[in-house]
């Protein structure tokens, strides 16, 4: 029990902080923060598997998050029949062509293993294939995007409940991670970071600009939630009764009937949004707990030991007969898949898909700060990092505002410096997170909850 004392203390403080936000600001804000904290925690578990277990730097988290989001759209949105009629065939043919092209290239690479002509043949195949695919898909894309462009203009999805997309998002991310891993994993640490970051940028720019796929920067809105809607709740009697019972003391004091009804209405509106967020939080928490159990089991299994051995001394592990390349690829795929799940969860939470919002700052670097601050190699640490950093990221502006007002209290309201500082309070989050990272890296390089391996 003693060894868990720190962990329990840290998590209790974190929960108290979120409750404090609930009391001081509002419960809706507190639960929004909690939900994002949980999603961030899933992302940090993914990043921690790669960096903490195996020592792989993946700066492409943004790309896998976006893929998860794309999965949510493709699973949840009902299919657009007119669009399929207009250009579905062309797109399917193009897809088959691309797959067969990749297959042919693989065959060529195998067959002409030692031939100098190999690269030329591959180049010719790629160029011819590119022209053919452009020729077939071009008109099809135009037709699809012409179908009611204000509302659809894309092929749509499967029309299934969005919760399935969490799995599909993981699969999407895993598939792309397989390709990326094959390309980039041979690179040394910092090259790998740059290469994955740039490949993620390619993925996001494809999602942004292929309108037939998911409307691109025109965004997809109105994704269906796995939990009830506020409006439905406000209309249902059981919910109103529940709220009435919950606040019966408060309502009892009010004597006027109309006034009481008004207060009750307001309470129901507040409670409905809290209820929805709680439902989502429950779902997210389930995912976090399942992943946490799985990753903890993996960490202390023979496989986890092998990964640590590879991380700590690649050459020695290789000499002991461990297949380093294969294990690196596997863990790269696993970690990315978890990030993909988080991406789908995030879109589920928001109910909309905005490809333009996938930026490296928010979806790669902040997640990395979370992992480093929390504790590399320790899942409890990584999750805590997700909570702490996201909390700071959101609450930085109010905190900064408080301090600005405190330190400039002697200045007049019209003072230019004061006004300028108050206007830029939102940017103090970068300062807070950056300085936090620098301090942790310097004085606690293993993170808030460091990795502890018990050798039995």
């Amino acid at each position: 029990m003693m060894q868990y004392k720190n962990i329990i203390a840290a998590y209790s403080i974190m929960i108290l902080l979120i409750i404090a936000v609930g009391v001081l600001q509002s419960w809706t804000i507190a639960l929004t923060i909690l939900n994002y904290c949980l999603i961030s925690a899933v992302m940090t578990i993914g990043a921690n598997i790669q960096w903490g277990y195996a020592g792989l730097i993946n700066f492409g988290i943004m790309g896998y998050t976006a893929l998860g989001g794309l999965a949510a759209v493709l699973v949840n949105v009902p299919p657009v029949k007119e669009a399929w009629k207009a250009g579905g065939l062309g797109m399917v043919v193009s897809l088959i062509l691309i797959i067969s092209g990749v297959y042919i290239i693989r065959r060529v690479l195998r067959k002409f293993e030692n031939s100098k002509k190999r690269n030329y043949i591959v180049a010719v195949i790629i160029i011819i294939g590119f022209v053919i695919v452009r020729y077939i898909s071009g008109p099809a894309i135009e037709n699809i995007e012409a179908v009611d462009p204000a509302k659809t203009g894309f092929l749509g999805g499967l029309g299934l409940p969005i919760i399935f997309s969490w799995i599909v998002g993981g699969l999407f991310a895993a598939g792309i991670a397989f390709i990326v891993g094959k390309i980039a994993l041979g690179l040394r640490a910092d090259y790998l970071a740059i290469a994955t970051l740039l490949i993620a940028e390619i993925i996001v720019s494809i999602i942004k600009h292929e309108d037939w796929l998911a409307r691109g920067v025109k965004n997809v809105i109105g994704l269906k939630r796995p939990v009830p809607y506020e409006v439905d709740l406000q209309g249902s009697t059981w919910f109103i009764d529940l709220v009435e019972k919950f606040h019966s003391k408060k309502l009892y004091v009010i004597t006027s009937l109309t006034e009481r009804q008004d207060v009750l209405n307001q309470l129901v509106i507040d409670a409905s949004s809290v209820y929805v967020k709680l439902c989502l939080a429950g779902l997210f928490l389930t995912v976090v707990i399942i992943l946490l159990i799985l990753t903890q089991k993996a960490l202390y299994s023979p496989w986890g030991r092998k990964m640590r051995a590879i991380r700590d001394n690649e050459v020695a592990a290789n000499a002991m007969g461990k297949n380093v390349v294969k294990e690196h690829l596997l863990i790269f795929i696993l970690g990315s898949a978890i990030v993909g799940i988080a991406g789908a969860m995030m879109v589920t939470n928001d109910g909309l898909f905005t490809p333009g919002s996938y930026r490296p700052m928010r979806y790669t670097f902040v997640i990395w700060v979370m992992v480093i601050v929390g504790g590399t190699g320790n899942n409890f640490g990584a999750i805590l990092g997700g909570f702490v950093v996201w909390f700071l990221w959101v609450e930085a502006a109010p905190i900064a505002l408080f301090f600005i007002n405190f330190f400039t209290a002697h200045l007049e309201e019209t003072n230019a410096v004061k006004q300028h500082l108050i206007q830029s309070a939102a940017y103090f989050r970068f300062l807070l997170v950056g300085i936090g990272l620098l301090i942790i890296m310097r004085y606690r390089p293993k993170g808030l909850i460091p990795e502890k391996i018990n050798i039995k």
Partner: protein
Amino acid sequence: MDFINAIVLLLNYTVIPALTYGSQLALGAIFVTLVYGILRFANFATGDMMSFGTMVAVLITFYFQSLGISFGFLPTALLTIPPAILAMIFYMLFIDKFVFSYYRVKKSPPVQLAMVSVGVMFVTQAIIRIIIGPFDRRFFDGEKFILKANEFKEMTGLNEGLTIKSTQAITIFVTVIVVSIMFWFLNRTKTGTSMRAYSDNEDLALLSGIDPKKVVLITWIIAGILATIGGVLYGLDKSYRPFVYFNNMLPIFAAAIVGGIGNPFGAFLGGYVIAFAEILVTYAYKKFFAYLLPEFMEPDSLMQLLSTDYKFAVSFSILVIVLLFRPSGIFKGKTL
């Protein structure tokens, strides 16, 4: 005649913009490569350091403009480059003293330094946004064009006009001067040679009496000069916006790696490789072919390989291809 028209068309829409953009990237890429070669880490704060230098230049430009100081037909910003460089070098040395030097002395792995540079990136971004805000700022003044399309048409009697913006000419001119001085310094002076020796083999360099502190100091000074000039030139040509500068880090990295990281000359050429690839792949060749081909063969599509949305993606794909086939870059850099 059609042939000349086609050439002028290409010059106007691809070659000159690509040369300009390439020069801006090249300066940044040399900055990345120097830091990588001598201080031995991938500096993720590259874009924001360039942004910081530019911010100082922008602020001083606004101050000069309010005083009524101008540089004739040249942009006022050119006058503000020296003080901006000073501020930039001061900031870099400050960061180095309080952040990077600790890890250098401890001989931390490069990955750790890269993560530290992410922290520096956050802090620099915060400082910039708190001081100047996240908005778009134009600080260009002076004569806008050196050669206008109409003048060129009248001069030569061609159908196609050739435009040369003064920012384009300034960019290329300044880049050539700065880069030549830098290569002269690195290859011909004693300090430059000692820097290259330090980059090649640190232990041997230390044994032969090279002062590591001096090498680091000079590296940051050169880095500050390159970062500020590159940033100001980019800002003059387009406009100054912190977010864009952060994003520019990506093609700059691509340029540095394509050229062979740790190799300044490779980085210089890498900048142009990336810029030309981006612009040539996304340019619509319809008009070009319309001039060259006989009338019945005129293309009806845009003849564009990829839409301009994929500008960034092109440069990153080139990077991926280079990494696949020549992992040490086109010109041999440090091995991976």
